[in-house]
């Protein structure tokens, strides 16, 4: 009798908690498609993005026990060793931020089964996909319950995920039906993380009106306002982990839509900052720069060799930020990071180019040959070997929208104008 009473009391307590939770506002945080941008590159200000800022924001937005935080895959873009280390760092960071689920998309699966195993150990039970037939054989789950929701992950390119993991693909429509059915059985609202386009998300919302929310993938910035198709909310955090979208859910309705840029107003989270520092140490210890593919080119001379004939241009270079570009990286502990070093030295993709500060000091920093190409032969025989003419396209390899979002040729050229 006593036991029954206790059990009854516990049941009442659980029911009460459930009732309270049912009434409480659920915070929904949408992130994803980090695409390997663990850090906002420091090339120009104010840079947006980075996991250290994201962690600060996610912690600020989260309400203990009433938060659904989704990472819609796309952790990295490529499948090299650095990408695998990035993905591990992201998984460890997302776990620290209290992630609900991580959708495994084509790029993530492309890292291979070895990497997926590691990620599943850094974020146990959080990696999910409905896009392959046997996810558990690849250390993946299918759905995760969170508050009033059942969260599932899928991709509109299931063949790409299946091909990378050696499994068979599940068509998207069937994946989503599985999610909707499972949610109905559990008495929860289905939420879909979709590695797929807005068009596909809209179609799914039309075909599966029970879906409460679809998080999809898109380049650029999130839309300014909440979008609904029927009663399904469609939202995206945009590209490169620059934004987080936050919503609230209460009484069966979403509201409070906000697209929040991860700007400099967000102080780096201390815990994730430690993981980020460990990432940089791993990149350095594994000597990833030495493993970069290089092509045979003509030899480089170093910018100082240009000065004897091009005194004025060299003088301008000496006073420019370009000259000190590698030192900037060293200060930021990124001097062994291939992602960054390629744009801060001369000829990283060449067998004759930058190797290290110690062995090729004349090629550390952005120099004349970063734009004009290898020039040792020109230095030896200026009249016989001419360097090719270049245009402003020479700038765009490094000053691209992600690394240099404020780049504008005319104003930047004025800083280094020379003839």
């Amino acid at each position, binding site marked *: 009798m006593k036991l029954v009473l206790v059990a009854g009391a516990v049941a009442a307590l659980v029911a009460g908690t459930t009732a309270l939770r049912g009434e409480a506002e659920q915070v929904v945080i949408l992130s994803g498609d980090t695409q390997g941008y663990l850090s906002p590159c420091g090339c120009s200000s104010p840079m947006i993005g980075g996991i250290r800022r994201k962690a600060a924001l996610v912690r600020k937005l989260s309400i203990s026990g009433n938060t659904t935080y989704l990472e819609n895959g796309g952790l990295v873009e490529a499948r090299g060793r650095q990408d695998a280390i990035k993905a591990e760092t992201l998984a460890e960071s997302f776990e620290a931020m209290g992630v609900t689920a991580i959708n495994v998309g084509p790029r993530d699966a492309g890292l291979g089964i070895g990497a997926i195993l590691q990620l599943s150990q850094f974020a146990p039970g959080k990696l999910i996909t409905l896009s392959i037939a046997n996810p558990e054989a690849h250390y993946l789950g299918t759905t995760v319950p969170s508050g009033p929701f059942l969260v599932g992950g899928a991709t509109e390119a*299931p063949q790409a995920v299946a091909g990378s993991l050696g499994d068979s693909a599940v068509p998207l429509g069937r994946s989503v039906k599985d999610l909707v059915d499972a949610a109905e059985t559990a008495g929860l609202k289905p939420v879909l993380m979709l590695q797929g386009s807005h068009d596909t998300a809209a179609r799914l919302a039309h075909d599966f009106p029970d879906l409460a929310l679809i998080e999809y993938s898109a380049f650029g910035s999130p839309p300014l306002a909440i979008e609904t198709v029927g009663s399904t909310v469609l939202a995206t955090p945009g590209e490169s982990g620059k934004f987080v979208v936050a919503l609230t859910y209460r009484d069966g309705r979403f509201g409070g839509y906000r697209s929040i840029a991860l700007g400099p107003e967000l*102080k780096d989270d201390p815990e994730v900052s430690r993981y980020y520092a460990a990432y940089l140490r791993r990149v350095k210890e594994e000597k990833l720069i030495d493993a970069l593919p290089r092509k045979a080119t003509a030899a480089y001379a170093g910018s100082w060799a240009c000065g004897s004939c091009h005194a004025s241009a060299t003088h301008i270079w000496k006073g420019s930020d370009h000259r000190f570009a590698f030192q900037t990286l060293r200060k930021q502990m990124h001097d062994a990071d291939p992602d960054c070093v390629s744009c801060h030295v001369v000829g990283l993709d060449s067998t004759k180019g930058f190797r290290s500060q110690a062995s090729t000091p004349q090629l550390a920093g952005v120099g004349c040959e970063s734009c004009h190409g290898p020039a040792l032969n020109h230095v030896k025989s200026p009249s016989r070997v001419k360097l090719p003419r270049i245009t402003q396209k020479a700038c765009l390899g490094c000053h691209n929208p992600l690394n240099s979002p404020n780049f504008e040729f005319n104003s930047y050229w004025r800083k280094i104008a020379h003839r």
Partner: protein
Amino acid sequence: MLIAVAALAIQTVAPLRPTLSIGCSREIGAAVEKIAKLTEAKDFKGAAAALHLIPGRETNVAWDDQSVPGGSRYDFGRSRDLAMAEWGTAVGLTQFVVSKTAPDIAFSFVPDGGMTLEWSDDLSKPRLTVKIGVKKGDAPVDPTTVHNDVAYAIGTYLGITKLPLPGLLMSGVDDATQILRLSGIEAAIARDNVTSCEKVAEQVGRSLPVSSGMPSMEADPQPVKLGPIIQGMPIELSFAIKNTGAGTLLFRIIPDCSCFSTQRTQVLQPDKSEDAKARMDTTNFSGMVQNGLVRHNLYLLSNDPAHPVRQIPVEVKITPRYRLLPDRQVVIADDNGNVTYTAYLYAPADHPLTVTSAESQGLPGAVTFEPWSGIMADPDLNEGPLPRKGYKFTLKLKGIPDGMQLATNILIGTDDPNFAQISDQVFVQKGIIVLPPQVSLGEVGKAPRKRSFFVTRRGKPFSILSADVDSKHLDATFETTQTPGEFLVTVSYDGQAPKGDYHATVTITTDDPNQKTIKIPVTGTVR
């Protein structure tokens, strides 16, 4: 006679027509307009009194922190001083002084809620009254928030409108967890506004007229939706602007992405029309699962106080310029270390791409290429088998060593200047491979932790004879998986290593005479 000449001289002086900055606020526009009208009515005394409505050389700041808990007053005061100093330095023309006398801005604290700002045209009251909640929800407000609130309020007083661009102090974001710094554009807007107000004050001081009539921007920029566009094709956008007001209109488009190039600030006299233009470079956007959907925002800033900023959403669908298949490929070398790998490039049928060269970058090897057409699926784009046309590349490599996975590139030259050189990364491996090649425990504490990894050789089974470790804090076991020729090795960390970086090595012994031992570094950080 002399008096008459002087009066004539005053009458012939052209009245000042103040030009505020792009991004100026409605309130500063209205205040300047009010002063101008007073001068036009020759009420210079009234105009001089009304100068209180616009920022001047000295800004008095009243600070009532009676509602602030005693322990926070000092820190909040420092936050205020920092914000005032930043604006003072950035603008250079105005000093901020904490004073109870004739305050221009009056700060006070209330028990709860976010910051509120209230303007007043009453010359006996502070121009701007700012109330900051001591608590926001359940959380007490901190010095960082006070700084950002004070800095935002000062920016508002200096006539800057709310700017919805990411990362700016004047974006008025509510989620800041650290101090926001002034950007160049915010400082420039404040400087230009204060300079204009200075000129107004000088004019009033000399009893000279100021012309009323602000610029008025007639523009109706609609959200842009374009596509599909082939990646690399530029997109020209233009928005018709007409100045229907009396003042000189300044306008400028500021993009949220350097994929746009825009013009510098444009000047438009009354009744004149001109286009605001932006050009989008689509080279950096490919298709993939996003289906090429790109969203960005343009911000049309002007000095029309009624419309200082308009946000123009831009949505473009972009089709990839080319596709390289297969993607993310790992190629297994034969027993002699030789690799032959085939890749395909295709382009949209109506935008063919001519390949001009192909070479191997990285591992020594040779690449040949030839025109190709056939049927092929593109899984990443979720496209089944379709007719494609492009090129076939054959990469031949020699001498791939055992036990390594190496990256190499096929470098492809094309006739499209936007894609003059493109590369296809290929991974090659031979022999027994460890996946991943190094194992990270991550950050560990006192709790034990396990990590597993694969030791594998596809298509040619082998045996592991032993798995040893060189650390007393680590143990290693191994088991076969369902895949022939594959083992799962598990290392168990005991949680007892001293603080700092942790390094250990697992040594696997195999029955393969070419790879008798394989070493796997294990790293972690002990806290």
